[in-house]
């Protein structure tokens, strides 16, 4: 099996790479790449993302043919893709961080700032929070409801269709923290930084 972690020069992806390498134990051929050919021949793709929605979208767009390749992988070939943090957020139609920016449009919805209730809640939402699993998702196999995951973000994905939500977390509101739509998976939290439970999720994605 060939798994590619998209390296589009946006933020720090070494932790993501380390976590997949830790889990795969020679089962998987892991590529860290933005090469269109390599991505095309992958069985699975991981789309990390750090920084702002706009900076990540801009970075994806700056690599010729990358977005087209990802679109085809997800929408035509229907192969599994896991988006992490801003990687998940980019699934949306539109994001409002910095300025209004068009997203990948894979899961209809928007990304806007978490309502911190006039300063009552600190932003970014940083730290370990429990996830409420609301839908059976293959990536949550053997992961208990109310497990802790590590979060760090100020913006949240609000999908139009609640059916895609697989987990939420309680902060100032019920924040969507995991989605699944057919072959598309995403987590707002960082499995690569969520210790054993997070590594289990990585393992589940590899074993899909």
């Amino acid at each position, binding site marked *: 099996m060939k798994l590619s972690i998209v390296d589009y020069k946006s933020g*720090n992806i070494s*932790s993501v790479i380390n*976590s997949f390498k*830790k889990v795969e134990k020679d089962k998987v051929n892991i590529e860290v790449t933005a090469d269109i050919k390599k991505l095309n021949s992958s069985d699975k793709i991981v789309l990390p993302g750090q920084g702002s929605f706009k900076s990540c979208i801009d970075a994806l767009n700056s690599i010729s043919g990358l977005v087209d390749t990802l679109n085809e992988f997800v929408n035509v070939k229907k192969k599994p893709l896991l988006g992490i943090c801003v990687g998940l957020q980019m699934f949306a139609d539109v994001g409002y961080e910095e300025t209004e920016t068009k997203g990948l449009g894979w899961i209809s919805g928007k990304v806007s700032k978490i309502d911190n209730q006039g300063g009552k809640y*600190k932003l*970014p939402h940083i*730290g370990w929070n429990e996830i409420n699993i609301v839908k059976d998702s293959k990536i949550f196999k053997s992961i208990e409801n109310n497990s802790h995951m590590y*979060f760090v973000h100020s913006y949240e994905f609000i999908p139009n269709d609640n059916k895609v939500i697989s987990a939420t977390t309680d902060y100032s509101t019920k924040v969507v923290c995991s989605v699944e739509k057919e072959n598309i998976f995403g987590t707002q939290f960082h499995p690569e930084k*969520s210790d054993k439970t997070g590594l289990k999720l990585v393992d589940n994605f590899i074993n899909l």
Partner: protein
Amino acid sequence: MLKNRIIPCLDVKNGRVVKGINFVDLQDAGDPVEQAKIYSDGGADEICFLDITASNENRDTIYNVVKETSKKCFVPLTVGGGVRSIEDINKLLNCGADKVSINTAAVKDSNVVLESSKKFGSQCIVVAIDAKKNGDKWEVYTHGGRNNSGLDALEFSKKMEDSGAGELLVTSMDRDGTQIGYDIDLMKKISSMVNIPLIASGGVGNLDHLAEGIKDGNASAVLAASIFHYGKHSVIEAKEYLNSKGIPVRI
């Protein structure tokens, strides 16, 4: 519900832990990678390395430490000490640090915070503020507490938030090493002024001090060194204590 974090901090000099866990079964008491792993296996919510390497020629030792640690620890890793430029931050992040804490460089030129948070995201930029009370105000010190910048710590905190810092790591120099507890007054004042999380540091001598930092100081996270290093308390003991006081922690 978001949990309050407990962050053990290790001082690293020339790639070796200076003060560290003093367990008999440690193969190499000076190995920061091994110590970080003990902490993360023991329930630490995050690990912090403070590089106190003095000489420039040994400065690169921290990069290897971070690289090796990030292959073995899967909780967030914050690295600080001697971070001077965007390039330093970039290097640490590429080695596997999740957050970088900036102290002197942020005081010298707040643009470092502005630019780095734009480039890498606020989530990985922590500004470390060393504050000391002089008269009726707290002033910001740099160079490991040797130089007084004369800046007001409260105003500086606000400025760092506005510059894009994702978190503030506030150390009371008056309390650091005393083991008599955090400077609650300082923590409370800063945390009520800013909307970003505050990590309290300096002065922890017992578990009650950790509880005070969170309950009275309104800190989102508490950092401590010596109470964990010498086997006085384990991280899990600290968490159980906080839990018994009604403070939400990850157990």
